[in-house]
């Protein structure tokens, strides 16, 4: 199979614009290799914290119908030390997602990966269901600025900053990220949401509140990418609700230079990556689009 729809984003050459989102099959080098074989243009690891985290007790994910999930995994991850060993032999197009509860943690995490063959980093500012991580940090604009400055001092590799629809204005957060030296923005993360079981009268997720992903958030993600691409010069990775090749096209027309997929893999399996790429290639062909770059942000013109 040929997954060639080459793109360039933040100086990175990817064979195609379809990136596996953070938290999706993001813990194992063997799985990364398989995802790459299956067609992924790049892979973002699970968000990695300095120390290991067990995350929340199950249920950590609930399907709310209409191709959407709410999850509250609680950022379970092996921690920076262990994960750097996991990927020590990586040679694939891997971005390591970073999460921390404190400014100083980030340097420590980044340094663990400094000698590894990875593409770069994604900073998770927007995990909506873990207190003092992600969203909470993302809401403090000064902190966002400082963290990005720090990370960029510690690595020469591209840094994408992942933003979401939280308490603060996504555009402002992204602008601060840009001004602090971020090389790209990933938008959007999941949105705080809840599912209650009316028979037992309690929230389904152990953490009660989780993050909404999948189809439900697609029109929100497209809007964010559209608005962000008006205000930013750095490239944007669109994420949220992509289920079909046409969704990818929509994100790119709104201004995304690449996209990430997540829930789709839960709904349609790991091989859906190859299928969506095949459909995307076919679409570009019948639409006589020789370079996918042509369509990036085309609705703004």
């Amino acid at each position, binding site marked *: 199979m040929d997954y060639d729809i080459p793109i360039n984003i933040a100086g990175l050459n990817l064979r195609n614009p379809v990136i596996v989102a953070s*938290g999706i099959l993001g813990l194992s080098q063997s799985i990364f290799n398989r995802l790459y074989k299956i067609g992924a243009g790049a892979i973002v690891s699970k968000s990695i914290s300095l120390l290991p985290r067990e995350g929340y007790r199950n249920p*950590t994910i609930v399907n709310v119908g209409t191709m959407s999930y709410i999850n509250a995994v609680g950022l379970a991850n092996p921690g920076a030390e262990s994960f750097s060993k996991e990927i020590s032999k990586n040679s694939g197009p891997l971005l390591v997602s970073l999460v921390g509860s404190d400014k100083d943690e980030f340097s420590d995490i980044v340094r663990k990966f400094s000698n590894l063959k990875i593409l770069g980093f994604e900073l998770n500012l927007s995990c909506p269901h873990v207190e003092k991580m992600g969203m909470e940090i993302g809401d403090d604009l000064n902190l966002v600025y400082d963290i990005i400055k720090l990370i960029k001092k510690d690595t020469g590799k591209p840094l994408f900053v992942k933003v979401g629809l939280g308490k603060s204005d996504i555009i402002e957060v992204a602008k601060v990220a840009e001004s602090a030296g971020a090389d790209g923005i990933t938008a959007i993360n999941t949105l705080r949401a809840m599912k209650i079981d009316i028979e037992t009268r309690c929230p389904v997720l152990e953490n009660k509140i989780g993050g909404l992903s999948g189809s439900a958030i697609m029109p929100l993600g497209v809007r964010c990418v559209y608005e962000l691409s008006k205000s930013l010069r750095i490239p944007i990775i669109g994420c949220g609700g992509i289920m079909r090749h046409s969704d990818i096209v929509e994100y790119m027309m709104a201004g995304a230079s690449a996209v990430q997929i997540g829930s789709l893999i839960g709904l349609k*399996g*790991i091989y859906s990556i190859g299928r969506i790429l095949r459909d995307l290639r076919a679409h570009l062909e019948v639409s006589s689009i020789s370079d996918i770059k042509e369509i990036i942000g085309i609705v703004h013109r």
Partner: protein
Amino acid sequence: MELSTDKKLMRMVEIEDVVIESPTVKTFVFKDILGSESKPGQFLMVWIPRKEELPLSVMISDKKNHAAITIRKKGYGSTSLFNKGKGEKIGIRGPYGNSFSFDTSHKNIIFLGGGTGLVPLVRLLYSIKRHQCNFTFIIGAKTRSELFFTQIISEWAEGGKIDLFITTEDGSLGTKGYPTDILRDFLSIHNDTDIIYTCGPEMMMKKAYDLAKTNGVHIEASIERYMKCGIGICSSCCINDKLVCVDGTVFNETKIQKLTEFGISYRNKSGITTQF
């Protein structure tokens, strides 16, 4: 209330029967069409409201449109479920995962299981017992009181014949020792064995796999890993590049051969690789 027919969505079911299998093992029966149609080896994600969600193999039920699960009381989640009674509600989704295969040309079939690993094996035996095969069922347990399902297994002999071997580590019932001891001896005598189906402690399955290889016998093992999502999205269940929840839980000898982590290591809740 209509019954959901979307296996992806959680459905609330009411426990209709509770069977006490042993002091620490119970079977819960509930109405669920999707569950009742599960293939042997598939599992459900079972939500114990306010407590936990656990992957559990689908047990058989003799009631139409009903399914069952068999739980061994262990830690927080399993104990919460164990303490549920008739009329209480639990949530289920699935069935998920692949299943044991059955080749009708096979005539001599071994089941090797221990503990709740017996559940998928019982479901498998139930679905193939009408075939004219020689079924050998080897059950291992620590001690007599931990044995269950022996009755149901020995009662079933429709098309073929069923030999039941029991081992206990303390010798309180059956042969003293491990079920793999029986398997080794059995294979050395019966060189016409076609396939071994196994589910239980990974070290037991690993031994069985080695024996199967040595003796040139097919094997299918149902592997357990820590599961969060059950739908192939979180990778907490991974073994090498396979996801046990969707690529498994059943792997045959060809696949197991590539699973270098089989019997060696698993990932803990944080995803850290841990030795058995």
